[in-house]
């Protein structure tokens, strides 16, 4: 099929300013054990291709799952017709900047192919974790999952790019839900949506779900009896998994340059990080360093090339609290006279690429976690996301977490339930006075980042270690 697509690209070259085509095959295997039985095992496959063209300065895109040269020619022509229709509402020509002409292959490095592991072996791990959680009588619902993803993609363009990639991802997690008379409490491990990485089955095995099941169940049960987290302004230490979502919502999304240019305005919104702020805005304290790094080994936002044929890169976003860079596409970068830093990805062959987070990381600081707790005279420790909400410019946020603990005189004290904290993004990051070291740093996979219409789900990640924030408002 690749040759057929090459032939069609050659045939339409004279009719278009630019064209690219992606041929994509994906396979997703999902296993879920719920309350002692295998709730579902599914194996889904999808294959298709999509042509993206620029004609007279306007975009057109069409796609199909019928794999023949004749269909490819029809779909390419359809994309051209759509681009022509787009001219009705055009204000300027699309400019992609310098050509991207990579010819290369890329493959995720794995130790053990998750699709080659017998289903029975995966089920056994999940059932064992379930069995351990079942021993706790307060736990009414138990869920254990193992998910594997395979994406094979070919990218060809009229500029000469020819890239083949094979990306493998694997992960899973467990959840214990305790139900009281008028309350429901949940604990998850390793995170509320598990953890997933561009690694093989060895990553799932390393999660040790069974080894963490008893503690997870005990914590869910204990939350039913825990006092409600008090309201007020306090010092907050945020654990790594919750901080990953904090980075996601309050840094990752607002630095998407398509949002900044208003291209997502009607749905997800825009961004407070407008272009005049780049290099000229205090995003956080001098402890805050953030990067977009699609090259991290094992990160869920790691790949070889984006869906415009731009190589994966590491780009600074925030340096010592100063906002210094966006994540970009070819079209948006060229508006700022920059070259794309390779963040365009599509959720499937039938979707157009959008600017998506890669691994947006809070770089490690120099604090030891135990020392950070000891250094905190009065505060609250929160972790594991339960609820999330942020305004459409990414300023006012509110997060709920599964669990909290009181910190008093440098020690972690009693467990607290239903913690919620809120803030305004630059003020919140401006009050960050400590970030833990690389010893405590982990890249958390986020396999469900929604953006675009129709909604596209991207696999992204955030490297974080626990950090401390002063003067945070806690309570709804």
């Amino acid at each position, binding site marked *: 099929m690749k040759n057929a697509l090459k032939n069609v690209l050659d045939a339409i070259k004279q009719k278009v300013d630019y064209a690219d085509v992606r041929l994509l095959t994906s396979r997703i295997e999902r296993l879920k054990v719920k309350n002692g039985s295998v709730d579902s095992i*599914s194996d889904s496959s999808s294959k298709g291709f999509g042509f993206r063209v620029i004609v007279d300065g306007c975009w057109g895109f069409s796609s199909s799952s019928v794999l023949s040269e004749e269909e490819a020619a029809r779909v390419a022509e359809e994309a051209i017709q759509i681009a022509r229709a787009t001219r009705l509402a055009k204000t300027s020509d699309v400019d992609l900047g310098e050509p991207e002409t990579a010819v290369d292959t890329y493959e995720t490095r794995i130790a053990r192919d998750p699709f080659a592991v017998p289903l*029975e072996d995966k089920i056994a791990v999940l*059932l064992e974790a379930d069995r351990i959680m079942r021993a706790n009588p307060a736990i009414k619902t138990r869920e254990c999952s193992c998910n594997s993803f395979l994406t094979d993609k070919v990218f060809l363009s009229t500029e000469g790019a020819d890239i083949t990639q094979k990306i493998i991802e694997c992960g899973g997690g467990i959840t214990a839900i305790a139900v009281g008379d008028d309350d429901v409490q949940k604990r998850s491990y390793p995170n509320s949506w598990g953890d997933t990485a561009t690694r093989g089955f060895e990553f799932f095995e390393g999660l040790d779900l069974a080894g963490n099941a008893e503690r997870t169940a005990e914590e869910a049960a204990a939350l039913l009896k825990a006092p409600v987290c008090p309201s007020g302004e306090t010092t907050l230490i945020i654990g790594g998994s919750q901080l990953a979502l904090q980075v996601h919502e309050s840094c990752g999304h607002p630095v998407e340059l398509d949002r900044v240019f*208003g291209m997502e305005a009607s749905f997800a919104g825009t961004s407070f990080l407008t272009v005049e702020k780049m290099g000229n805005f205090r995003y956080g304290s001098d402890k805050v360093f953030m990067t977009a790094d699609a090259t991290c080994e094992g990160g869920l936002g790691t790949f070889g090339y984006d869906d415009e044929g731009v190589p994966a890169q590491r780009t600074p976003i925030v340096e010592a609290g100063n906002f210094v860079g966006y994540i970009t596409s070819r079209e948006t970068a060229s508006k700022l006279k920059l070259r794309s830093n390779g963040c365009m990805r599509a959720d499937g062959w039938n979707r157009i690429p959008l600017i998506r987070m890669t691994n947006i990381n809070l770089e490690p600081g120099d604090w030891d976690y135990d020392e950070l707790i000891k250094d905190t005279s009065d505060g609250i420790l929160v972790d594991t996301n339960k609820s999330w*909400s942020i305004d459409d410019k990414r300023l006012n946020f*509110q997060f709920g977490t599964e669990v909290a603990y009181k910190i008093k005189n440098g020690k972690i004290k009693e467990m607290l339930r239903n913690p919620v904290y809120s803030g305004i993004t630059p003020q919140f990051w401006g009050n960050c006075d400590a970030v833990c070291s690389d010893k405590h740093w982990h890249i958390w996979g986020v396999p469900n980042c929604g953006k675009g219409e129709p909604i596209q789900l991207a696999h992204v990640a955030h490297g974080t270690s626990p950090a401390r924030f002063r003067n945070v408002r806690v309570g709804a």
Partner: protein
Amino acid sequence: MMLGEAKAIELLKKVISLTEADQAEALVMSDKTGLTRFANSTIHQNVFEKDAVVYLRAAVGKKIGVASSNLLDEDSLKKLARTAVEIARSQVDNPDFDGFPASPRAEKVHAYFESTGECPPKRRAENVKAVIDAANKMNFLAAGSHWTASKELAVANSAGTEQYHKYSAGYLNTVIMSPTSSGYADGSFLDIDDFDSASLGDEAARICAASQDPREIDEGAYDVVISEAALNSILDWLGYIGFGADWFQEGRSFMAGNIDEKIMGNNISMWDDGFDPAGLPLPFDFEGVPKQRVDLIRKGVAKSVVHNTVSAKRGGVRSTGHALPPGEQINALPLNMFVGTGDSTREEMVQSMDRGILVTRFHYINGLLDPKRALFTGMTRDGTFFVENGKIAYPLKNMRFTHSMLEAFSNVEMISRQAKLNISTWQGAAVVPAMKIKGFNFSGKTEF
């Protein structure tokens, strides 16, 4: 790609015949969608896709395997059949599986309009142009999206069930922006010939103009008038955390332990009806079970939740015809919701307020804070106004609400007599009115 009824059923029977399972159920969802997105008053995405995905559930005894694929050639279908059976054989027994249901043919409901199903990109671009023109008249910028689709759903199983439904749907939303404000409008339709995008553009431009230079007010409890779009976004979450069987049976839903109890006001009724042509009709579910009308809340009293065959077995009831596609994380959800109307207009609601807030749209609602209380949070956006003495006094900077929806729906003072169809980009739709709610808690504010 559109298959048509005969081809779709033939395809499903073929897939079933290829399995070595004791029982099998096949489902095909086909889709042809064109989408035009615009921003800064220009079209920046114009896309088209067509696809058909076959799901196969194979049962070996009480063990079930699920496989799906969009490859419909003979070899791929054989592989699909093998994969589903292999998965089933590696499974453990599902005690709640009682066999795939033998369902009668669901009554046909007309829901397909060729004008929408075959809508060319030029017509979508013309509709978008009308919205952009409305923004240009005021020197504002328009953003939004406009899609049109034709879709098919067919289900067959080895117990003799055969169902087929074809429908069209479309949607346009727009945010029109000035340097200090924005205004929103949206519209859903089955037949694009009944759709007027220019009026949506005018409405969004009017809201944008009225919400320039917003002011800030203190947090606290205010009476609010919320639009149909705002209520629809609340209803999405309410359906997810409250009205599906899973969370109900696990004791996590606000409905759990409250059946036949009063949990909302007398003037609140919510139900699901897959046959009502005022919504987006879907006469059967993804197991091929014909939809029942289900009263969720009747005059403020919790009545029922929706089921598929598995949750129905657990609950000792019959499936209500609300199964989701195989492999989803949740068994059953209401996809055709309606909220009962009242006898007011939105203007009358505003006129009735001494001091309150008019909300055009909510953003990023989250309903997971405390599902038993239906405690939700979210932001206002695209047109929030302070009302004094029955009139809009001035525009407001956006605010965060954190409030129990059980409390909110116990304090509804007025409901509009008109309800509006809201079609989601996934399966499903809701028909909802506007409402005036007393004492709605705003817990925070933002800078714009």
